[in-house]
């Protein structure tokens, strides 16, 4: 959630360069979020990934790590592809022996978050501007060098997307995102 004034595309060269940042992020694709509870065993990741690749679905991000229950891991996949086959794919995922369940959390009532590390080339005045943006988004500087900084920011994916677009094109040297993780609210199952 940001209170930055939305920019008007096409009003300045800077705006158009921001726009290309947006396009690079693939903001125009419909993204789905699937949460899976899987056995923590070798080969599970490959089998899950193959369900997506076989259908020509692209995996935008995939996070997997041990869950609360021993021997089981939680996986959150953000993917893009034909929405009409999403339901079928979730059934194919559930069919895998190592998958306990797979649920579509694209529009469910859930909490989601993500971390991004952004390395930005800046010094002097441009650094001041970068630090202002960082402060606004509650991002922390985790690396401070002569000609660059690394910002760490966490929050919803839209917040991260918004922040990233604010940096002038070409100033972002590297960007690493953790991928979205979700959890269903109250006692609903993720």
């Amino acid at each position: 959630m940001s209170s930055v004034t939305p920019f008007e595309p096409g009003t300045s060269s800077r705006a158009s360069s921001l726009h290309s940042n947006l396009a690079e992020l693939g903001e125009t694709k419909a993204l789905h979020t699937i949460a899976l509870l899987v056995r923590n065993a070798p080969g599970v990741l490959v089998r899950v990934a193959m369900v997506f690749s076989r259908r020509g679905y692209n995996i935008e991000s995939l996070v997997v790590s041990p869950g609360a229950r021993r021997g089981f891991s939680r996986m959150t996949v953000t993917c893009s592809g034909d929405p009409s086959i999403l339901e079928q794919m979730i059934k194919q995922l559930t069919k895998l022996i190592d998958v306990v369940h797979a649920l579509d959390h694209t529009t469910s009532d859930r909490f989601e978050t993500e971390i991004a590390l952004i390395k930005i080339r800046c010094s002097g005045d441009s650094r001041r501007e970068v630090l202002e943006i960082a402060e606004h988004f509650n991002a922390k500087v985790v690396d401070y060098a002569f000609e660059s900084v690394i910002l760490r920011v966490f929050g919803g994916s839209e917040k991260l997307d918004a922040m990233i677009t604010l940096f002038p094109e070409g100033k972002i040297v590297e960007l690493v995102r953790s991928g979205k993780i979700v959890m269903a609210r109250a006692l609903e199952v993720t």
Partner: protein
Amino acid sequence: MESMLPTGAQKLIQCLEREGVEYIFGYSGGAAMPIFDALVDSDIELILVRHEQGATHMADGYARATGKPGVVLVTSGPGATNTVTGLLTAHMDSVPIIVLTGQTISSMLGKDGFQEADTTGITYAVVKHSYLLNDAADIPRTTREAFHIATTGRPGPVLIDLPKDVTQGPCDAAFVDEVDLPGYTIPTHGDPDAIRRAAEMLSAARRPLLYVGHGAVISNAGKAVIRLAEKLRAPIVNTLLGKGAADETHPQHLGMLGMHGTAYANKAVDACDCIMAIGARWDDRITGKLDEFCLGASKIHVDIDPAEFGKMVVPDVAITGDARLVLDELIPQVEPETSDEWLEQCQAWRQRYPLKYAKQGGLRTQHVLDRLNALTQGNAVITTDVGQHQMWAAQFCLSTTNRHWVSSGGAGTMGFGFPASLGAQFGCPDKKVWAIVGDGGFQMTQAELATAAIHKLPTKCLIINNNFLGMVRQWQELFFENRLSGVDLVGNPDFVKLAQAYGVKALRIRRPADVDRVLAEAHDHDEGPCVVVAEVVKEDNVFPMIPSGAPISGMIIEKPKGPLAKPTGST
């Protein structure tokens, strides 16, 4: 004390014995040697094949004919990769086989060792599940799980990759009876609400139709299908893989539907107002052009695998469960109001558009198979290879008994028919088993003639020899202006001499007048295998035909006069 512990291989064999395994179809090699050694002391009989592909098809044929899982044992590297086609075949048709592959020692994994292959990596897409063991202590649990997964729910192949150090070293683990697989549920009874809605839909239908697939075979639902059909006064059609579930000679049975199904089955499907899929998956060979398939008919889908609902066809009612259990619940709730009119219409179509073939002009496959059907009366187990002969066999060999029909449908694997018949014979020693194969497919696994001969299996192998890759030739004739490419099987051996070279009795049919006599001679020969070579006309076409991607209304009943547009569907 370590010296008292069995080796991993010995434990594995003991686990297989506990699972009731009688035969292992296999081929030895370095990485699997500990297991082959342990087999020497076991009552399980090793059937040594001549190619690993043959082993997988044998295990597959055994499983389809008996309902029990077939077991394969091969070595690492090329031995394992030679099983991929057989795994695909079993996977596509939901057949339970366990494939045990030797593997290089654990410390060499991923280092390109001699005869190492990333077996689990290569086979992910063609198995129901697979394991790579790195601890002998996992052997009992893994074996039990593998058999459980392969044989329950929607059956399928399971692979276990066994590094040599794991099978050679000691195994300190107890046998296991229970499985703990939270990610695996086995549907049984259908949802009562869905069953009730399906019953209402069937009761309201004027022209209901039962469309029966492999799921009805697996769950042994044939008698229930007949009860339902009789109550509803509905016709029955089956897929290639559904043959034999419900007696095909029943007066309400219209035979196979689909691309090469009977014209009357397809007309009934096109005209019905309610179609119920029982253990069938609306395959493209059945539906043709999907958006013109059964328009205006309500659709009920009974399947043990919920991932099939909505994959091809969106049903009005979907019931997850075992076909037989679902039908048993459903039948009492059905209150039909049909008259005899619908069945009479179906019989009229049967009279008007019968299957036919030319009786003059040389020996025809259809004639040979028609006579074989008269001879066996549905009492023999019939396996087929893939091609024109397969379609004619499906049309003319009427299956009356469950699990008497063994044919590769989903994968359409050439080379399947002959080894599958051997596996079926091992599983059904008291039954007559006939393999119907083409000259193309036979040559892909013909080396198993040796296996048939050594074990004196009384299996009969009918080779339909037209010296062509017939089905592809047919397509080239109909859709590619008869530009033949890659279909002329010149250089075929004399199959009679080839069989005799293996010590196998072989007979030849050259003329229609020879058919009955030769088939009977082969049928009665039980001292060992018998090959019958039928030298049929070089060119003939399977009709009816619905070109892929065409709707049922595009069905071609006889050879057309003019050229045809290329089909839009996949092959």
